[in-house]
């Protein structure tokens, strides 16, 4: 009993100590979420420090003080600035916060400097990075950043005719006889599958085809089997796949097995899942100027153009990279950081691991899109 009391007392004392430490020396990132700007680092002694201060205020969503610190605030209003940072339309960053930021000096002189600011947004789909190059000018003894304001893209008033094509599904009822017919799940097929060994473990790559005439919600699971046919691990493609496949559409998929080794694997059991879902054939998104850029900074770049009339709030770009024999060597993906307005190009830039970039000979890009308040 005495030992129990001693343990309880120790835990209470440790908790009290941690609470006091948290109040006395709060973590700046945590403080930012509480809205406490007074503890933010405010220094304008160097160009980097000035940009750092601005980034801290953006992180704390202190729009007023962030706007006040800008050298070019006469060019736009505070709300323009806020919307330029947050995104003009509902997108993946709308309900996200800046988790952390990085500052890189690009050029410096006694009177001005250029600094790159990378904001890391913690979104529901993971880390999304936005990058802006800020011009910083010296005003007296202080440095003031100028925000590279990007004006809100305006879509000219127009009528875009859409032959709205949509599938709706009526499933069997709960009270139907057990023999009553139900709508069959879509017929999907894995048309390519290829395991590769990476430093972080085994990665299974491949492509899935919806060979049916109805839309399919798809996912893929893979189970690594040892040489004596015993399961080692089962993982799914999670979001590294385009989940909605229209008839005859192909999606790449990538399944990660952290800490697994290909030498332990005897075979792989693939399990594709598909279910029939209501879906729309729109929006159509054109992927323009796709380019494979060689090392260093090997990447797949291009532009997305929403050819439909509705705004696409979140676009997920998946690039399938092939070697010269047409075999999949990697699947790279990126969530685009802004909404796709009709007929307005939005650039994407997907990093390709440098060791794989040398093997890549061709690519194929698909886009999964999500619209709030509308069909997928």
């Amino acid at each position, binding site marked *: 009993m005495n030992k129990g009391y001693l343990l309880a007392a120790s835990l209470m004392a440790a908790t009290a100590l941690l609470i006091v430490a948290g109040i006395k020396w709060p973590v700046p990132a945590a403080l930012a979420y509480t809205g406490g700007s007074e503890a933010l680092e405010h220094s304008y002694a160097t160009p980097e420090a000035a940009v750092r201060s601005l980034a801290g205020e953006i992180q704390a969503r202190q729009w007023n003080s962030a706007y006040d610190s800008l050298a070019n605030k006469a060019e736009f209003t505070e709300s323009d600035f806020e919307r330029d940072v947050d995104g003009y339309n509902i997108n993946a960053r709308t309900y996200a916060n800046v988790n952390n930021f990085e500052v890189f000096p690009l050029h410096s002189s006694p009177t001005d400097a250029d600094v790159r600011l990378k904001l890391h947004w913690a979104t529901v789909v993971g880390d999304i990075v936005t990058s802006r190059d800020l011009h910083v000018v010296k005003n007296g003894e202080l440095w003031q950043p100028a925000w590279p304001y990007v004006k809100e893209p305006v879509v000219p008033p127009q009528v875009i005719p859409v032959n709205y*094509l949509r599938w709706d599904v009526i499933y069997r009822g709960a009270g139907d006889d057990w023999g009553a017919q139900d709508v069959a799940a879509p017929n999907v097929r894995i048309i390519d599958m290829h395991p590769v060994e990476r430093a972080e473990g085994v990665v299974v790559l491949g492509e899935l085809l919806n060979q049916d005439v109805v839309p399919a919600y798809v996912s893929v699971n893979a189970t690594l089997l040892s040489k004596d046919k015993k399961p080692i691990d089962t993982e799914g493609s999670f979001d590294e796949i385009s989940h909605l496949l229209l008839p005859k559409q192909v999606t790449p998929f990538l399944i990660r097995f952290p800490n697994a080794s290909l030498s332990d694997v005897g075979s792989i059991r693939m399990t594709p899942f598909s279910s029939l879902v209501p879906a729309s054939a729109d929006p159509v998104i054109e992927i323009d100027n796709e380019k494979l850029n060689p090392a260093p900074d090997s990447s797949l770049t291009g532009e997305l153009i929403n050819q439909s009339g509705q705004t696409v709030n979140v676009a997920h770009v998946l690039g399938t990279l092939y070697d010269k024999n047409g075999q999949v060597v990697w699947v790279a993906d990126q969530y685009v950081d802004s909404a796709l307005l009709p007929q307005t190009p939005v650039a994407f830039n997907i990093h390709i691991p440098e060791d794989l970039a040398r093997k890549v000979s061709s690519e194929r890009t698909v886009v999964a899109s999500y619209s709030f308040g509308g069909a997928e």
Partner: protein
Amino acid sequence: MRLGLPFLLAGFAVSMQPAIAQNGEIGLPKAVEAGNPFSIQSSGSGKATLYIVGLGQVLKRDVNLGETISFPAGSLYHAGHYVVVLAGPTGTESGSLNVTAAGKPAELSFLAEPSRLPVGLHDGITGAAYVFDAYRNLIVAPSSVSFELSSPTGAAQRRTATTRDGAAWIAMDSTAQQGKDKFVAEIGGISATRVIGQVAGDPCELKMSAKSSGSEVELETDPVRDCSGNAVPDGTIVTFTESYRDSQSTVDVPLKRGVAKVDMPAHDGATISVASGVVMGNQIRWEGR
């Protein structure tokens, strides 16, 4: 809880099996057809209680020993094995009887798979029929079920299969023409109908044409059909790919009114190809007109 008493009585009756063999004073029919009237002959005198216990049904009746106990039609309707216990003033007698499914089919459960398949598939459609009587008892006696698959053109495939342990099954080919087929299973005037959607197969001879439209090239496929001439349904994705120097543009376009149409950047010397799923179409080299 509801099955507690039947099990208790069944257990009790099983424990009495040697007594049945010795006394044998309860006259039971060997088998009763579900829903039919039947009677049990008792012997002796005095009052007794008769229990008939099965897995799905229990009957209890106060009887005068020595009389014939009659049960009207519909008294026992669940097929299966029943234990009969006659509890009298001096002892208990027991026996058993079997209730069999009625001979006349009254209901058909018909499983047809799949609900949708491509045209021209050998043995692609399967049907399994389960035959039941009016009380939903599976009729296990062999009986003949006829299957008919008819296409919208009126052409029909007919087959007959004999039930085994209450089920008959069959496989049929999908025809070359798309549409909604009627798949009917029939026995003794009872039928069940299912609808099988026969849909177009993969596109065949996918072909596009291109024409100049200002700074863009307007691409449009010919009406997309499968190898049997069926129109591939709207919504099917057609992928246009334009390769120019070291860059590429791609659009996944759904078929609308049978064709896929898109505008892409016009670059002299660009190569434009079209595909749908794993089927490749033609290729065009754009020279500005």
